[in-house]
Structure formats: C-alpha cells, structure tokens
C-alpha cells in the first residue's frame, strides 16, 4: 500500500479532489454565505455583555453538567461484546459572594442527591439475531429513571404537534395511529433495528445514561439554573414514521419538558460541530466587534422571522428538530462552539414575537451567564462545569487497561473458563 501512497499519482488524485471541493462546494457555500452575510451581521450576531470579574450576582445560581464516556469494546467473550459506560454529573455554585467562582457542591451533597460520581456501568449483548436490540432495550429500561414507556414518548408528541397529541388517546386519527402498539414498548421504540451496529448501540447507551443522569438532576432538590449536556439537542427522526428512531430521542424531549416545568435551562454545548461557515461567521464577528470580542450568533430556522439561513438550507439536521442552535465564542483561542436550546423553552422565554429588541435582550442575558461560567483558566471559553464533568467521566487508556486487568481477575475469582477475552489487536482489526 505504502508504495502507492508515496507516488505522485496519489498526490495528483488528492489535488483533483480538493479542486473539486473548492469548485463545487466552497463556491456554492460562498454564494450562499454572501446571501446570508448582511442578515448575520445586522440581526443574528451580537456581542456579549460581560459580568465584571468581581461581580456580586443578585442571585447566585447552580450549574449542572453531565458528560459520559466509555468503550464498546471493553471485552470480547467469543461473540459477546461487553460495553463499559461512565457518566459524571458535576454541579457548581456560581458563588460570586464568596469569590470562589463555580465551586463544586460538596461531595456529600452530590452523593445524597445524585449518588456517587462518576457512575460506571457495563452492558453486554451477543451476536445472536435480535440479541443486540433485546439487550439494548433491557438496559435502557434499567438505566432510565422514568419507566412507563408511554410517559417517555408523550412529551415528544406534545412538543412536536404543538399540543395536539398530548395523551395516548390523541393518537387516534393521526398518522401515528398505526404505530401505537410499538410506542408502548422500549424494544419496539428501537426502529433502526437493521443498523444496530456496535457503535450505534454504544452511542445509544451513552446518550441514555447521560439523559438518565440529567433526569436525576431535574428530579433532585438541587434546582440548578442551567443544566448542560455535552453535544447537541438533536433528535434523529424515523424517515417514514415521523418520530424519533431511537428511545433516546423521546427521552431528550422528556427531559426538555421536565426542565421547563422545573424552571431549569437545558442546553447542550459542542466544541466539535459541523456548522458550515463557522469560521466565516467568526471572521465576520471579529471584523465587526474586534479581535478579542466575545460574541454569539443565532442560527434561525424556517419558522423564525426572516426564515432559515441559506448556508444551512440543505443541511437537514441543522437546526435540529425542536432545538435552537447558536454559535458562540468566549475566547479567540478556540474555534466557535455551538450551543442548542430547547425550542419550546426558547419560544416561551427568549423569543418575543415582533420585538427583536426584547428578544436580543433575553439572548444577551442568557449568554452573559454562559460566558461567566466559562472563565476557568484551564478551559477558558468553555463552560467549566462541562469540562469538569468530562474530566471526571473520561476513561483513559490507562484506566481501561486497569479495568480489563480487574475483569480478568474477577473471572479467575469466579472460576470461569478462560475464553478469548482480549479485544482484538488493532493491527489485526481487518
């Protein structure tokens, strides 16, 4: 292979490819961006008003954040796969009055309210037909604190249909009617059965673990002002059925509804995102506000005043179903990040119909808080609670090695026959 890669022919192939991308995609995007540019500059972008470093907030508040990690390849026992999952919840207190900004709540409080952190869980399934789906459903049922599947699915339909379908009986006469039997069982909520590859299973497990942790925060006595998730508030829809193709999609909407009810602002932050032209928007912001300005930029959808942006016209996943994304930058050191809010909450709390000025004020108040919680010197520009949650849940290579050692030891202790338990060697991974 190497001798092929080292040829000029390969380089030429690449050159052609990149030329192609520039010709087709970039040029097209460039055109689209110029169509959006004025609107971005004038309506969607704005600076963030900063709290002074020694601010005394009228109301100090709590921020909770959740992150998860794990591996879909913790162990292989013949065709049995063992997944390992870790989830961490961090709750910080803005504590401006004490001067120790965003201090974690005491371990004891966290223990009492949420159980010890981080959580570690394992999951397994075999290669037997339907076993992956079976076991996945079983684990999800175990993990998610809300047990009644109907309760889990209804929030989605309520938000999605604007309240038209608000209880199980409302399905009658709708396009969903034929799916009702499937909407009452965790296993049949998994409608992507054909594509249940190991990474997909793992992803779903991780998401649901995180959502379960989030739900625990919402039902605790902690009442944070913000609840931060890692990633986006995306719900992947089943193409034909027009509802989420995985249980996690429903659960997310359950969380959103619960958060609204509890007065908690739910959002998801992602450093790695695929918003096209983020760099162009950043450049525009710098030109407008200066090199080290802190800014945010709303990415509207079709239903918003002025309609959707051209640059994301054909990217169906942006904005996600029932979510409102923004780009923001709190530090010129990093590329802009993305943050998603629950659209229903946003319509009730941020957006003021026919009053762009009031809307902007709401947005500014929101980002002012978000920026304030992103000043930790270790992760400047990124919400410290999320960073701490990440640090707390991440499984390093070393951790995994150790966990595997221990699992071997446990098997020995249990007197189990030794099967091939090593994960496949990387270089053998054909």
């Amino acid at each position: 292979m190497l001798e092929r890669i080292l040829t000029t022919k390969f380089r030429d192939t690449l050159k052609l490819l990149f030329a192609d991308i520039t010709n087709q995609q970039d040029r097209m995007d460039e055109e689209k961006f110029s169509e959006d540019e004025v609107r971005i500059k004038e309506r969607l972008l704005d600076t963030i008003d900063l709290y002074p470093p020694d601010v005394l907030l009228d109301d100090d508040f709590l921020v909770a954040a959740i992150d998860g990690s794990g591996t879909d390849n913790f162990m292989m026992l013949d065709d049995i796969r063992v997944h390992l999952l870790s989830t961490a919840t961090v709750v910080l207190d803005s504590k401006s009055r004490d001067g120790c900004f965003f201090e974690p709540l005491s371990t004891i409080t966290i223990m009492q309210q949420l159980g010890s952190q981080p959580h570690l869980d394992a999951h397994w399934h075999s290669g037997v037909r339907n076993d992956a789906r079976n076991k996945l459903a079983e684990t999800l049922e175990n993990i998610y604190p809300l047990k009644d599947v109907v309760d889990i699915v209804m929030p989605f339909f309520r938000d999605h249909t604007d309240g038209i379908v608000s209880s199980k009986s409302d399905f009658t006469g709708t396009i969903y009617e034929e799916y009702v039997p499937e909407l009452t069982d965790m296993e049949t909520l998994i409608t992507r059965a054909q594509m249940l590859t190991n990474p997909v299973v793992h992803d779903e497990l991780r998401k649901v673990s995180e959502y379960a942790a989030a739900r625990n925060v919402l039902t605790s006595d902690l009442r944070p002002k913000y609840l931060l998730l890692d990633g986006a508030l995306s719900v992947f829809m089943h193409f034909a059925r027009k509802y989420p193709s995985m249980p996690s999609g429903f659960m997310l909407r359950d969380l959103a509804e619960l958060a609204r009810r509890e007065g908690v602002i739910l959002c998801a932050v992602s450093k790695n995102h695929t918003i096209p032209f983020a760099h162009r928007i950043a450049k525009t912001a710098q030109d407008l506000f200066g090199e080290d300005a802190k800014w945010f930029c709303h990415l509207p959808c079709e239903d918003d005043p002025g309609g959707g942006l051209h640059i994301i016209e054909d990217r169906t996943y942006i904005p996600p179903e029932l979510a409102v994304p923004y780009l923001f930058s709190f530090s010129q050191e990093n590329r802009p990040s993305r943050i998603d809010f629950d659209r229903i909450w946003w319509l009730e709390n941020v957006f003021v119909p026919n009053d762009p000025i009031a809307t902007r004020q709401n947005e500014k108040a929101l980002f002012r808080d978000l920026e304030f919680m992103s000043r930790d010197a270790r992760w400047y520009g990124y919400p410290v609670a999320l960073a701490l949650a990440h640090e707390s849940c991440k499984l390093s290579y070393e951790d995994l090695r150790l966990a595997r050692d221990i699992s071997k030891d446990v098997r020995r202790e249990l007197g189990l026959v030794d099967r091939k338990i090593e994960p496949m060697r990387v270089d053998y991974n054909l």
Partner: protein
Amino acid sequence: MVLDRDKLGELYGKVGMGNQTMLGIMGRNRDISVGEIFVIYSQRDGTERVFFFRVLGLENYLRHVDDIGGVAGTLMVEGDAYLSGIERNMLLSVNGKMLGYAQQTNGKWTFMSPRRLPDHLASVYRPMPGISDEQIRTMLATQTDGHIYIGDLQVGEDTLDVPVLIPSEFLPMHVGIFGSTGSGKSNLMMVLIKSIIDSNMGLTGVSDDKRLTLSAFCIDPHDEFAKGVDKYGIQSIVETMDDKTRKEVVGDFYYLTTHKKATPREVKRYAREIRVQWNEIQPRDLYSIMEFTPQMSSFIDTQYSQHREDWIENILDMTDDPAGTPSGTLNAVKRRLGLLERSPIFEKRCSSILDDIFHAMESGRILVVNTSLMSDMEQFLLTTIVTRTLSDMRRALKSSGTLGDFERQGYMRLPSQFFSRVKTQAKSFYGIGGITDDLPVRDPRNLPVILVTVEEAPSILNPELMRGQSVFKDISRQGRKFNIGLLVVSQQVSVLDNVILSQMNTEINLRLGNEREIRACIENASVNISGFENEFRVMSRGECIVTASYRELPLSVRIPLFDSVFEKDMNDYKGKKTGSTKKHEL
C-alpha cells in the same frame, strides 16, 4: 515472610498514577507536608516491595492539567479567569520523588534505587510514630545502621523511632556538616561527640566486627561543648562516668584550652593547656592557612632546608634579606611569622601539647578544643599542625614494614624533637607484639579512626589555599588510607574547594542561609537530592538531610537536643561494662 501492612502506617489512599517525580494519590484530601514520606506497598509475582516516596511539593488537585504553564498564562492574560473548585477534588497530585524501594530477599531487607514504580492502585501508607517505627527500622536497616548516632528519622512533621547512624568505617572518607548560623551545628557536634563516646563504650550501633575505636579532635570556637548550652555538656558525661569507665574512655583529660586558669574548676581537672613549639611547625602548615608569594615561599623553603626545624627562630633573628632574595621578602615573611611571636600558644620553648594530642588520638579519645580565646589564624594553624602531625605519623607507619623502618620514616617526615619524644609511645601503638625495631607494624586502618574537625572551613578549605601545598588537600585525598577523616563544619558549601567536596562521602545538611547555598548543597550531595529545594526552605533548626555515597536513600533526620539524649542515656555511663551493645529504645 509476609509483611504486616498495618505496621506500615496509616492507610492514606491508592496510587492513581505516577512516575519518578509525581504521584497521583486517590486519598483523603488533607494536609500533607513537604518532606512527608509515603510508603507504598506493592506486590508482584510474590515479591513484596515497599516504595518510599518523598513529598517535595503539592498540588491539591489532580485534574490532569497537562499544561500548568498554559493555565498560569491564561490566568494572567484573561484577567477575569478563575479556577473552579480546585481544592475539593479527591485526587491529589503530589510532586515529589520516588526515593527507591525496600525489598525482602531471604528474610533480609535491601534497599534499591528507584528503577521501578509501584503498581496502579497500590496502597499508600503514611508512617506514624508508634505504629510504623519497627517496620520502617527493619526495612531501612541498610540505610540507617552504623555506629555514630546522629538523630532519628523524620517523616514530615513527625519523628519515628528509627535511629540514623553513620558507619565508623566511612568516617575517614570525611563528613560535612553544613548549616547557617543557628541551624544547630554546635548541638549536633555535641551529639556526635556523645555518640563517639557511646560507640567506644559499645553502647550504640550494630554489634559487628566493623566497629572501630574512634578519636576526635573537636574545635569548639565558642567554648560551648564542655559545659553545654543549657543544662548539660560533655563534662556531664565525663562526670557521670564511674572512675574505671572514665579512665578507659576519656583518660586523664579531654579539654584543651589556651588559658587553663580561666577554666571552671570542675572542667579544669580534665584540662590541658594548648602550647606548641615553633620547631613543631613546618612551612606547609603556614602554606595551608595563608597565602605566600612564590618569592616568600622559596625563601622559606631555603631557610627550612638549611635550618630544618629551627627555621622560624632563624628567620625571626635575621635582619637583612639574604643575598639573592628580593628585598622586602624577609620583612614580609617576618610580618607573617609575627603571628607566632605574638601568640601565647606558639612558643619558642615550652612543654608541647602535641605529645598529649598524639597520645589521645591514638588511644580512642575525644578532645574538646576551646579556641574561643584564640585568633582565627591561631585556630587554623593549630588544626593544621595537629592534622599534619597525626597524618605524618601514620604516613610514616604506612611506609614501613617494621618499627625500625618506622623510626627512620618518622625522622624523615616529622620535626625531630617531637618525634624523639613520642617515638617510644608511637611504637607501642603501632607495633605488633612489642616495641623492638624488628617487629612488624600494624595497618593504619586497624588503628582508631581519627576525626579532625575543621571549623569555619571556608577560611582554609577554599580554592586559593587548596591550590598550593595544603595539608588538607592530602588528607582529603588520602585520609582513608590512614584512617584519618575531616569533619568539615561550614555555613557555606559554595565557597569550599572541589577537592574536599568531591572526596566527602557523608553530608549532614542542616538549614541553610540562602538559595545559593541550598543549590550548592544539593549539587554537592552524595545522593541525588535534586528537587529538595522546598524541603531545605522549610527546614527548622535541628533538622537535617543526611546524604551519603554508600546509601541510596537521602534521610531526613531530626537531631535531638544534647540535653535530652544525655538525660535519656546518663545511667549507661555508670558502672557499665564496655563492649556490650545496647539495643536502641526510645
């Protein structure tokens, strides 16, 4: 044999991660002090190892801040940056040093340099007085055993009942005592003198064949040792002894002073007056303590070769520069020799103390030399003459096969009047089976170890003087062949000559005055103690770090006050048979 882990100390946590200089400990977050030792138990393939990790600095959190520098930068550049909840986390990152590990083979503990690291999740213990003493003592025996007691092993702010001793066979390879003023040098000297007495009595240390009789010539510039600073002094030991023990261990005298009349009555009984005759001084002695131009030394050398031991008298009687000598040389030399003319202790004719010193040093005695009424130069000259005389005697012995050879060698090397007076005595020390000339001589390495203290060492062990024909240069290099060691006492390390520093094999580093000395001390240490800067900075009086070329482990030691060790042991000096070994107890 399986180790009782409870005896290691209090269980503190588990090793999370680590390398030679950093340990992530999952443990209780609470005060850890610089200098603290963590003991880590590790077992692999049936081999038990106990690692010793010394805390040299702390970070109260461990959240994998890969780039501390970057964080500091952000804190500076982004004026509004903060650090969230840093003291709350449970995982501590402790900067320090893996000192090595103890390992048991065939029931014996050995100590190894840190070539390995403890396993992940190995248990971390914190040694505790009253719990860990015996276990630590056993494991570290190779690192702490010896004959001359210095103090007890310190772990952080606590002291364990683990006595730290220096093996007597390493004393001739020179010992350095470094500490700023008030760091506890004088108290340490008194503790050492006591330990030497105890060792000679067989009271301390391991009972093995390696124990040598010890002698020490201890300069006492403030006249503190005999009477002590507070309640007790060396005099107290001498007085506590029964007559027989005193005769065997101390002899008739132990106190040398310039003015016997001014000595307190009880000490006076053991005092001798310091007097040295001009003819016992050699040019080399002067070259060792002050600088001479080449003209001056060539003039002196000529005079010495013509008049031998009467050279000083002759020069002082001369009135004109002799032919061939640049004018002014004579006067310059006379000015330097004026020291001797004015001095009450260096006399043309007197009853010399050198004979007594020689006798005492070859008999395993300690001498406390009160130099408080001497000038610096007198003190240096005395130290030099004594050192040179003792070493030339042993040198003469070393180059001889028989006592007859020895006599010839002695006359060649030493002032003849002095040698005539001591030769019979010397033969009784050096001969095997009698004093007749055909008898074979003993190996100097079986004779008592003689320790000579060099106080205010930078004045004579500096590079300028050591460049020339310094007596101390020879001793630093060859002392061990003659069993003569220097006990170099200094407030500074940085100004000492490299020859002596490189020949030194034991360093007792007390609190130091400034960063430069700390750095010099660390560089000079016989074991790698880089990174110990913080520890030096927080050291208090009476604490020291002992490093030795023959040990892997740098030891933190708390030196007890002389009064307390004396009070503890005073009963041992009464009616005790010498030669028995007492087990250490607190």
